[in-house]
């Protein structure tokens, strides 16, 4: 899939969210989209998913089967988890993703109503519907946010499996969990452009840095470091 010289803005006269931005994604690619808040990561994901049309430029060779998990799953719907997944499986003409629900640790949620779910549980429902049916393009907007540790690790494995069978995975990820996936490339959205961030090469070993700073500034610095692609714990 190839995005070529894509420019996008929501309304005429608005500032450009993306300007002359390009991105090449080969089958099996896992792309992590980073960047500060409000720079257009979600907009880029929606463009790649075909939910928005570029004002200029083009996006070619988009795989036919697309899985999309939004940042906030729309849980204000009058279904149980099982009922919703059954409907969405029928819509996609695939089997109900029973194995996925087990792997994501959500079997105990199947009888619950969507509006009653916690944020993390609702997020799992969004992931399960996106992953059903072996998507050729998987678009995940902050997929690890709100997930428990087990589900985060399992999701990273599932992403690697999708890529291994030739699927393209594009995800924004402030948590940095995607970096455990082999072969992941990192792309930063900033000032309307998409820039591939250099991968950490093997002859540049990782080191641990301890920083002392006022507690009130810790969260902001951690967020900034994560946005720049560093692992923060």
């Amino acid at each position, binding site marked *: 899939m190839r995005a070529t010289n894509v420019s996008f803005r929501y309304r005429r006269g608005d500032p450009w969210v993306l300007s002359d931005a390009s991105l090449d994604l080969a089958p099996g690619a896992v792309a992590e989209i980073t960047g500060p808040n409000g720079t257009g990561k979600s907009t880029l994901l*929606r463009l790649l*998913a*075909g*939910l*928005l*049309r570029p004002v200029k430029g083009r996006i070619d060779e988009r795989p036919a089967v*697309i*899985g*999309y998990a*939004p940042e*906030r*799953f*729309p849980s*204000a*719907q*009058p*279904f149980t988890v099982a009922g919703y997944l059954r*409907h*969405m499986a*029928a*819509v*996609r*003409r695939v089997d109900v993703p029973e194995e996925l629900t087990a792997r994501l640790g959500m079997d105990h949620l199947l009888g619950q109503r969507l509006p009653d779910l916690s944020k993390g549980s609702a997020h799992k429902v*969004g992931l399960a*519907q*996106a992953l059903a049916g072996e998507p050729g393009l998987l*678009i995940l907007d902050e997929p690890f946010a709100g997930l428990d540790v087990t589900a985060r690790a399992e999701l990273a494995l599932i992403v690697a499996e999708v890529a291994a069978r030739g699927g393209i995975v594009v995800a924004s990820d402030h948590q940095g969990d995607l970096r455990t996936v082999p072969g992941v490339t990192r792309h930063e959205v900033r000032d309307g452009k998409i820039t591939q961030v250099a991968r950490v090469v093997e002859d540049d070993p990782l080191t641990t840095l301890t920083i002392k700073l006022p507690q009130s500034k810790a969260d902001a610095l951690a967020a900034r470091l994560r946005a720049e692609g560093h692992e923060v714990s």
Partner: protein
Amino acid sequence: MIPLVTFRLSGYVRSHRIFQPLLGLLAVLSVIYATGVPAGGELPSYSDSAGILMLVFAWGARGLLDNEPDEQRLIAITAVGRRRELVAGLLAALAFTGALALVALVFPLVVGFAETPGAADVGYGAGLHLLAVLAGTTLGALTSRPVLASPAASAAVLVGGYMAILLLSSAGPWASVPVLDWMNAAHHHELPERAAVIAASAVAWSVAGLAGYAAVRRVRG
């Protein structure tokens, strides 16, 4: 596409928002048929019912189309494609408003008409309700959230649009959806002669409106 139509209808019914247009339907039918309709007045009553209920159909269609959250609409688009998602929403709205119209057709046969009308009158009544379903669903789609994001603006345009249709339809059969024209024709026993023009005008306006809806959705998702 059928599973998505089923999903949309199921969500609408389960949300209980379906009761709003149902109550509107029952209120209109009660007003029209409360005092009974003497023999010979069946087709005029059907024409009034179709004309007035167009607003209820528009209300119901808008409610159904707006029932699911925006993010769910995006998920559905990625699942089945933009065109199929749009058509599935419209089919669900047409199925629901069609069911309301069926109730409006059968209701007076049970409690409103003094005598059972002939097949021709029932057929013309069904045809007029079908036109009202088509035009009402179109008006509902044109005032749904992807087109008009503000609920206040949407409600105002829905009611104002219906009133404008009524006013303009007094100017001639092609000036808008010919609601007053079909009422006038039915009350003066001229519907068989004027039915073709009335149907052509209503269908043409509805198709134009649906094309506009599709054009807006193509841009706004």
